[in-house]
């Protein structure tokens, strides 16, 4: 008989990064991914991308404006964010995030304004109660490609820094082998882009005219991200199983005994395969919508698994901590609230801004 140990008394450390953190990483990732999808039309003027880029800009803005609210909520007292600027510790990736987020969002908003100026002028010219407001907002309504490209560069640098810091912030936590892997920032980025494509497919179905996906070849792009997701997952697993990387082997050893973790891994791989199949095989609107929704779900689930699941692994104690989603603001209400805020921002932006371009205004 081998020695057996039963933990009789020990403390269970609670999940300290709450579902708010999952929501933040999910939304800011989607925003960055969506922003990248806006570039082909607004900065590079590829005609096939016009519809997709317009939907992507809507996605980038709605997610970008909602994400920091979730982040502030995770501080328990939002006013505390001032300390990030009063006492920054520049050796911490999180401290840099406090500067990268405003850089990205200000770049994104400037880019959005420059990109939509001609459409705002058309709205003003069409007349109506808000014509004067639209005229003021259009500020001449020039289509300044040079300025748009400069703003795109600013937003792109902000987006790259946000993607970098969000990945590095988690990767440098050596105390958690599951997080402490160079794969993590790449996995965050790839799943964020996949989720962003998924969001554009969903917005195309419910806000757009349903033609963006086919014109821009979004299903093929989504399929490519799923291949990357599967390759990264397989490489992670291989490094762990073979022991080529001790950190991956340690991480795998921590989660492998858990049935819940094994089911999660199968579910994630199955979701990626389903998205891949739907992206390549489905021709209709329903298939594209399903692919988009599954991609969105995968991006969220990946972050939930990494953050909440990762914190269920004790650093010193035996077994696993049990996490039960609270129904209040630090649990379900936080998730629903963030989703509700996103929908409210979406409704507001769809109502007041010309997302469909000239077609919408002429109609």
């Amino acid at each position: 008989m081998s020695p057996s140990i039963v933990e009789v008394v020990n403390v269970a450390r609670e999940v300290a990064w709450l579902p708010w953190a999952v929501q933040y990483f999910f939304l800011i990732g989607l925003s960055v991914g969506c922003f990248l999808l806006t570039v082909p039309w607004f900065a590079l003027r590829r005609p096939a991308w016009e519809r997709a880029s317009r939907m992507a800009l809507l996605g980038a803005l709605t997610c970008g404006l909602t994400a920091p609210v979730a982040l502030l909520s995770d501080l328990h007292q939002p006013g505390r964010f001032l300390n990030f600027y009063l006492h920054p510790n520049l050796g911490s990736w999180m401290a840099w995030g406090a500067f990268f987020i405003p850089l990205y969002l200000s770049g994104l908003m400037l880019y959005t304004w420059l990109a939509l100026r001609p459409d705002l002028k058309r709205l003003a010219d069409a007349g109506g109660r808000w014509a004067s407001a639209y005229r003021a907002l259009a500020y001449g309504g020039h289509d300044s490609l040079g300025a748009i490209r400069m703003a795109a560069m600013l937003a792109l640098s902000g987006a790259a820094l946000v993607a970098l810091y969000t990945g590095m912030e988690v990767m440098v936590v050596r105390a958690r082998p599951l997080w402490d892997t160079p794969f993590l920032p790449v996995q965050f980025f790839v799943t964020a882009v996949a989720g962003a494509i998924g969001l554009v497919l969903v917005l195309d179905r419910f806000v757009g005219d349903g033609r963006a996906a086919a014109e821009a070849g979004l299903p093929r792009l989504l399929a490519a991200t799923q291949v990357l997701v599967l390759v990264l997952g397989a490489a992670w697993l291989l490094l762990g199983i073979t022991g080529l990387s001790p950190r991956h082997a340690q991480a795998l050893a921590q989660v492998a005994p858990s049935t819940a973790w094994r089911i999660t891994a199968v579910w994630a791989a199955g979701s990626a395969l389903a998205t891949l199949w739907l992206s390549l095989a489905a021709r209709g609107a329903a298939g594209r919508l399903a692919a988009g929704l599954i991609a969105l779900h995968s991006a969220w689930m990946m972050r939930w698994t990494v953050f909440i699941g990762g914190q269920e692994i004790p650093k010193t104690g035996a077994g696993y901590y049990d996490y039960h989603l609270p129904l209040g603001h630090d649990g379900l209400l936080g998730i629903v609230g963030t989703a509700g805020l996103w929908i409210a921002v979406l409704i507001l932006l769809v109502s007041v801004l010309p997302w469909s371009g000239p077609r919408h205004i002429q109609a």
Partner: protein
Amino acid sequence: MSDDTLLQSRRGFLRALPAITAGAALPMGSARASEGKPHWAMLVDVRKCIGCQACTVSCIMENAVPVNSFRTIVSTYAVAQEVDGKLTAGTYVLPRLCNHCDHPPCVPVCPVGATFKRDDGIVVVDGDRCVGCAYCVQACPYDARFINHDTNKADKCTFCAHRVDAGLLPACVETCVGGARIFGDLNDPKGELRRRLDAAKNTDAIKVLKPESGTRPNVFYIGLDPRFQGRVEGQAALWRPSEHGG
């Protein structure tokens, strides 16, 4: 017993392994902190701990630790194993607290510099500056930190810095029934802590938790079973207090 025989069993191998790292765990002779200042540390003699949790309770009372949160606790394990063909069962107890590391992973990650190491080696949190982001909670390899539900800020053992500054012992040391916790100045060659550590210099009796993490803890252990030095491989706790129940 020859070395070969010792390494034949897995248990023997595990017991021998920490000896390799014992040298790294032991503190240098002196001057670990600022010149002329004390460098506080703790030695836990696990053999003397009776698992009474008096330290746990006194810490809660002294530091107003919220319900179901702990700055220190005596982890208690039921261990069954075969010795000389006979099945034996026993209890193993392990007092845990912040290790006040020389290379504390919690300090560099703090985005606002709220957590820092004092000149006397004690790692503390500036509650006025802490934003409650819990990054330090994630970075600590010992699960020694938590978010205080009363303040919503990071909380941890401070070696009872307020008592130490007043010339008193930490509450857990003061109340330890078996005298298992020895608190003292690493820079004081005549102090009990330094003498006990020096006496064990050439043996592998002194150990620290997770020596491979490179944190250089200032909480040392005598009688630390290697199976409990890192993450314990066993069945999860039967009783685990937490904020949302238990």
